[in-house]
């Protein structure tokens, strides 16, 4: 019997297709079948099997013609925050239900240009606001993982890129796009035992991605391993004149330069990330990670990021402030939902449309953001938060004077059960405590699976790098990946 094609990584699919071991159409069909059979996970908002097949046919033709592209034959999942021409794009909101863009985001266009096909639009937290995927208007995504306690509690796949993480972990797609504003790639990757990298702010164009918090939003890949992340990122990154914050830098050949030999490299361990009362499994995984990097030849030093404790409060001022303004365009006037009660005026239309179109978490953040920007509070909140942000960036700069990369846990816990934290937004926000500082500083950071906890759930280690040094991050990630030997996968129950 033939290998199950859906167990292959992006690199294996690419190379196997190139070698003629299988056709791209076979790959697409295999993944389409997995997608169709996994409705219970609710990972997709829209399935696009035809798109995947069409790209696969083109890939097979390209192979015959000898004109293969970097991602020929590779079907992927697209987070439903990326606008896709002719395919509904909702940001998992009622507000944009039925909205079909007539344009393609820069990142998704690059992926299609590289030969990739689309299996569907992946579910997420509404407008990327959430850490558990429970804020989606289209129902929460369920993680394929379950605790080894005999119970069948549905677990959160992380968020906001929870459709991406769940789909990859369940072999519904070999790789997917994610976006990360305060951990939305890294935390779901950690929760589901996969890898994901948020590159330096500006590496990937934000053009065509539904905005959450502009100064923080950054697209990145999620995949099964580090090499696949490198391959995907190479085909997502690049200067875009349509995004004023895009980095005008060449895209390195990250895959070719992958190396797990860390001799001569120094790894910083931030002492402020040792939180009191943290899950001992997390601490143990972190210590194991330190040992792995030493084994790879790295020198390990303790570093200090003194303003870490202010990062989360600053993030939860800046991100909602930007969101409150970015989401003002959803007003019922030009596209998306419009609620126009009988005899209503403009203000009534705004109120009805936005009350109906946004979910509770989105409303909460709009209200927080509106509050912190309002007259009389601006200096106390927004200005202060921006100062903190500057200090946090300076913390990292100073730390990187004595190390090349920083190693920390990705999240303070393993995946939690759906519904466990919805009643307490602050507890939910705390999930991002390790992820947020790198976002505020715009630094590249990735999560790689490193261990299972005592409940049999995956845990992720986070590597934070210097600005523009995705290579250093990927290489340290690779060193962990090779040593952690993480091969666990969720047993199929769906």
């Amino acid at each position, binding site marked *: 019997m033939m290998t199950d094609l859906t167990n292959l990584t992006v690199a294996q699919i690419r190379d196997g297709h190139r070698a003629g071991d299988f056709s791209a159409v076979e790959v697409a069909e295999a993944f389409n079948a997995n997608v169709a059979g996994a409705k219970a996970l609710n990972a997709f908002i829209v399935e696009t099997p035809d798109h995947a097949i069409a790209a696969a046919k083109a890939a097979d033709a390209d192979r015959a013609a000898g004109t293969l592209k970097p991602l020929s034959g590779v079907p992927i999942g697209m987070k439903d925050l990326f606008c896709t021409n002719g395919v509904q794009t909702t940001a998992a909101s009622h507000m944009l239900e039925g909205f079909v863009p007539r344009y393609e985001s820069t990142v998704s266009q690059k992926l299609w240009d590289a030969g990739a096909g689309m299996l569907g639009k992946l579910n997420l937290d509404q407008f990327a606001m959430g850490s558990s995927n429970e804020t989606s208007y289209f129902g929460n995504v369920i993680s394929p993982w379950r605790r080894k306690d005999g119970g069948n509690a549905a677990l959160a796949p992380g968020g906001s890129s929870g459709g991406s993480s769940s789909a990859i972990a369940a072999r519904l797609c070999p790789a997917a796009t994610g976006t990360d504003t305060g951990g939305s790639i890294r935390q779901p990757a950690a929760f589901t035992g996969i890898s994901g990298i948020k590159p330096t702010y500006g590496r990937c164009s934000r053009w065509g991605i539904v905005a959450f918090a502009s100064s923080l939003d950054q697209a990145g890949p999620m995949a099964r391993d580090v090499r696949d992340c490198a391959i995907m990122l190479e085909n997502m990154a690049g200067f875009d004149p349509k995004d*004023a*914050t895009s980095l005008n830098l060449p895209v390195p050949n990250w895959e070719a330069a992958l190396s797990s030999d860390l001799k001569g490299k120094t790894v910083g361990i931030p002492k402020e990330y040792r939180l009191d009362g943290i899950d001992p499994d997390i601490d143990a995984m972190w210590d194991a990670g330190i040992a792995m990097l030493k084994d790879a030849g790295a020198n390990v030093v303790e570093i200090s990021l003194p303003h870490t404790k202010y990062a989360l409060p600053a993030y939860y001022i800046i991100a909602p402030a930007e969101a409150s303004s970015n989401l*003002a365009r959803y007003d019922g006037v030009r596209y998306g939902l419009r609620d126009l009660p009988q005899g209503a005026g403009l203000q009534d239309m705004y109120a009805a449309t936005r009350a109906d179109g946004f979910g509770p978490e989105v409303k909460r953040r709009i209200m927080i953001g509106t509050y912190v920007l309002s007259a009389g509070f601006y200096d106390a909140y927004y200005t202060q938060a921006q100062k903190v942000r500057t200090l946090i960036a300076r913390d990292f700069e100073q730390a990187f004077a004595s190390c090349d990369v920083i190693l920390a846990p990705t999240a303070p816990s393993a995946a939690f059960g759906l519904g466990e934290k919805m009643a307490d937004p602050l507890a939910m926000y705390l999930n991002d405590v390790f992820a947020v500082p790198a976002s505020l500083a715009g630094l590249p950071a990735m999560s790689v699976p490193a261990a299972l906890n005592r409940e049999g759930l995956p845990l992720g280690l986070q590597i934070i790098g210097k600005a523009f040094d995705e290579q250093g991050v990927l290489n340290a990630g690779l060193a962990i990946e090779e040593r952690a030997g993480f091969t666990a996968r969720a047993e199929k129950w769906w």
Partner: protein
Amino acid sequence: MMSDYRVQGETGEWEVVIGLEVHAQVTSNAKLFSGAATAFGAEPNTQVSLVDAAMPGMLPVPNRECIRQAVRTGMAIDAQINKWSRFDRKNYFYADLPQGYQISQLYHPLVGEGSLMIEADEKAGIPEAKRIGIERIHVEQDAGKLMHDQHPTMSYVDLNRSGVALMEIVSRPDMRSPAEAGAYVRKLRSILRYVGSCDGNMEEGSMRADVNVSVRKPGKEFGTRTETKNVNSVRFVMAVIEGEAKRQVALIESGGTVVQETRLYDPDRNETRSMRSKEDAHDYRYFPDPDLLPLELDDAFLAECRESLPELPDAKRARYLAAGISAYNADVLTAEVESALWFDALLETGAKPVAAANWVTSELFGALNRLGKSFADCPVTPAQAGELLGLVADGTISGTIAKQVFEKMLESGDGAAAIVEREGLKQTSDTGAIEAEIAKVLAANADKVEQYKAGKEALFGFFVGQTMKAMQGRANPQVVNELLKKALG
């Protein structure tokens, strides 16, 4: 000497304090943050990009030409150019504002402190030239336009203007009369048009003013001001100030207080009415636009902006005055960039400045008025006019004949020399011919000759006129003068 404009109240005289915020549409083919076109009068919603419509995921990218025009404008008013500036979002909901915010510059404007001169105009009550301070110029997006007449119960929106670049030019509260404010707007408009950064077309809305007015007893503290929005002509600006000052004085003198508020001007009734008071003013929640990096200008860019500036109205006026041109003519010639450029081209032909200025401001302006034309479609070229003035200067034709020749030039489009030649209009200094006509004139007016000789010297002009008439205007007036004096002994 300060302006003596005063509002007469029951309690005495009141002084008016005026500041203006002028919104000027930047001349540019594309909008401030998108590539969409900006032409006036296009069909609704035909000049709208995805960015202007604020579609999901769309991002603004600054248009360098708009920035360049604002910088050049700043240089033209001798303002400080800020090499580091930043865009802020001004947040409010309205159907003509697709993003839900206007991208503007509150905290760090592109252009800082500058000023411009308004000239003395005694007739208008401006006794001497006055410098008006300009606090800042920042660039920002225009909004779209609501259309209320397209549907019985609904309003439509036209986004053609949405995202068009505006300069907001904020004056100091330095003006003290409607005339000063009018002169300020005209001068600012003139400078913008010289620089080419705004077409100054107030009817099409390319320039409009928010008028801030307060009153006080002369020399006392500033009073509370009101702001009348979107006033779109010089005349209306002056009317708003006059009316608003009177309203405020009457209000205060009847025991009321002026409230800080936004008002609207109704040109049909020539009055302002309250739009909203400070209490219900929007909280715009300004904050730096996170989609845009700070704007940093380098020295090469600034140098290019400076080098590209044309000679500006004040410099031009000074040059004209130095050439002996009257202040009145200099003002008239420099007010509009088209007339000034046309006049400069005329000077290039070698025309004598004073005679040329007189001719342009009387003959040419008159002809354009009559024909309903402007310098943009002027029926004669500076070269043709230079040829005509040259014929006067070298004595080939008289000023009187020049008028006839000019008329024929306008009718036929032919050159002055050709017309003079063809029609035989050359001025004559032929003393014999002139003496013969003088003799006839004196003979026919023997009574007047008597009176002249008896001391009524004013009659000399009459004899000159009669002789010129007899010569059909072709006699050299100087020669006629000399010969007449001789003949009249």
